[in-house]
């Protein structure tokens, strides 16, 4: 078992004092960010990237910090779902359905504890899945040539809108905008400037960190400015009686089968391109409802209705790391942001990552295990602490978010030009969210554009300009087929799935897990 011995090496790395501290810090920050409505895993991680980068953390520790934030945010999202009936982030949406009714019955503490345990089970099993599945996927990825990689990138973009995508034209538009932005700057292969309009600052291209922080974090500030005074803009404290925080064993054991089933389901949803944690928790909830809800108690405060989506979304979060690490192609917003961090550190994810930087990969995976235990400990006894955080009103939180975004970007480049660019991206993000254009494809386009073009041109150089080489191998034909099906399918079945998911949804739901 190669994977297990590599994992043991990873534990040796993760157990250093510095890494343990970073994991703890990440879990803490992540839980807080997840709990706060308006800050989710993707914009939470986005704000921290420039910081991790300017602090000069090496690759391994930086990734440990950020994935701990990612897992932490997945745990934290449930807190405001249960207590305030406002999902802290999009994947926690389904948790409101049974979590809030439980809280209304005075069982908030039980709901929080149970969801903490389910989050742990989901994330723990998914991390095991990552250990075994990622190396397998790497074996397949080693067969990929430039043509196959190009097809894989197309597949990632085609499926990114997701099965529940509302408008595939807008998803394609978003991807094209992102890819277009990535072509700005000096062409890496021939050295000619493209779309720079004589502006020296643009010769290096547009830094994807600037784009990410602007699109994800600043656009959130504008959304809050827009909604000021409406129920969403003001933090209404509501009643915060937690009740007992140690659930009776019977409650947990009754939910174990639910947790196990939904963890598997969530993990699969996370690994598949275009699904992600939001769909993972939705699938988990609806399948569980169909399977065990004989007395029609789901939706009225059934504990299993709390366990299912939480195990599902945390498992999906782990699953989404598989394609990101093994193929270098992320399937969700937050993993795209994590990929940005790796690229900023000059590490190219994909099969070579497992060969060249095994310390980073396995240290990271080991840190996920450790982080999980930390989160479990943090989220059950200390949950009262996190509920206090919810009392910070957005009118104070949002300026902090904006200012930390500025600090992070300024710390990297020290140039006002980048800050202006970030503000422009913030406005663009706001407009696109109003028009219901998803932001994740934009980010992914900015991130992957250069690699996608490089692979295309490498493939063409090998085939000496013969474009049919893109469809020459069986592997690439399979990838193209999945891409086409993945793009067309949502147009056919999307409306149906959306209707079921439409129970509650933000108007500006374009930022996904």
């Amino acid at each position, binding site marked *: 078992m190669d994977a297990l011995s590599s994992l043991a090496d990873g534990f040796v790395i993760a157990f250093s004092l510095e890494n343990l501290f970073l994991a703890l810090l990440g879990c803490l920050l992540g839980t807080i960010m997840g709990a706060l409505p308006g800050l989710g895993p993707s914009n939470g991680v986005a704000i921290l990237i420039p910081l991790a980068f300017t602090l000069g953390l090496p690759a391994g520790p930086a990734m440990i910090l950020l994935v701990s934030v990612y897992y932490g945010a997945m745990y934290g999202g449930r807190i405001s779902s249960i207590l305030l009936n406002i999902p802290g982030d999009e994947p926690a949406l389904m948790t409101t359905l049974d979590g809030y009714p439980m809280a209304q019955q005075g069982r908030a503490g039980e709901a929080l504890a149970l969801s903490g345990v389910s989050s742990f089970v989901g994330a723990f099993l998914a991390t095991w899945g990552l250990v075994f599945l990622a190396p397998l996927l790497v074996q397949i990825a080693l067969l990929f040539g430039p043509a196959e990689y190009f097809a894989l990138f197309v597949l990632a973009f085609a499926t990114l809108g997701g099965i529940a995508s509302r408008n595939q034209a807008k998803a394609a538009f978003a991807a*094209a905008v992102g890819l*277009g932005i990535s072509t700005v700057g000096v062409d890496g292969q021939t050295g000619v400037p493209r779309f720079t309009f004589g502006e020296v600052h643009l010769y290096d291209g547009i830094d994807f960190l600037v784009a990410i922080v602007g699109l994800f974090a600043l656009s959130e500030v504008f959304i809050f400015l827009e909604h000021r005074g409406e129920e969403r803009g*003001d933090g209404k404290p509501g009643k915060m009686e937690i009740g007992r925080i140690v659930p009776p064993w019977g409650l947990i054991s009754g939910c174990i089968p639910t947790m196990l089933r939904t963890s598997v389901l969530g993990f699969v949803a996370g690994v598949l391109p275009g699904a992600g944690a939001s769909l993972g928790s939705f699938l988990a909830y609806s399948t569980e409802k169909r399977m065990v809800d004989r007395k029609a108690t789901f939706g009225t405060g059934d504990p299993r209705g709390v366990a299912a989506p939480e195990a599902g979304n945390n498992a999906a979060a782990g699953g989404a790391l598989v394609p990101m690490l093994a193929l270098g192609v992320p399937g969700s917003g937050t993993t795209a942001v994590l990929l940005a961090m790796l690229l900023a550190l000059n590490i190219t994810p994909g099969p070579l990552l497992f060969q060249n930087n095994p310390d980073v990969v396995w240290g990271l995976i080991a840190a996920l295990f450790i982080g999980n235990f930390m989160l479990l400990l943090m989220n059950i006894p200390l949950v009262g602490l996190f509920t206090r955080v919810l009392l910070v009103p957005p009118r104070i939180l949002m*300026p902090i978010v904006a200012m930390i975004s500025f600090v992070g970007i300024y710390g990297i480049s020290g140039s006002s030009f980048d800050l202006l660019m970030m503000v422009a991206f913030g406005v663009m993000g706001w407009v696109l969210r109003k*028009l219901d254009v998803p932001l994740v494809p934009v980010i992914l386009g900015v991130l992957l554009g250069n690699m996608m*073009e490089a692979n295309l041109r490498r493939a063409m150089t090998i085939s000496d300009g013969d474009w049919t080489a893109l469809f020459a191998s069986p592997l690439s034909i399979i990838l193209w087929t999945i891409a086409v099906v993945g793009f067309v399918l949502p147009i056919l079945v999307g409306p149906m799935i959306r209707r079921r998911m439409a129970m509650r949804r933000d*108007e500006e739901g374009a930022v996904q897990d």
Partner: protein
Amino acid sequence: MSDRVFGGIGLALAVFFIWQATLIELSFITDPVGPRIFPIIIGIVLGLSSLVVLLRPDPEPHWPAARRLFEIAVAVAVMVAYAELLPEVGFVIATAVASAFLTWRLGTTPLWSVVTGVSISVGIYVVFRLILGLSLARGPLGF
């Protein structure tokens, strides 16, 4: 209507993008694809998707009233001014002013806005400059 305008702008952008792509100068180093083809492909995807949005628009989004739009515009102006003035006046002052403004517009009372702005600015300075040692913009006063 919004989507039709949006699609129209997207289409114009696509045409402009493709036109600019054809103007990219070629270098003496070259490969079978060259620097122009990939942007042109993207421009075509951009144009086609904009066309679909133009022809089959979604239901109208909920736009804020003119006053709120103005509010957002002012916030953008403050952020632009912040970006421009940051190296001139230094981190602490610029940040205190900008965050006081933002929290005021988000509904804090004027007096508390000043307190909040100063606290945010000093708080970030302490955490990021003094504890973490990040380089922030230095003004004439040294902070």
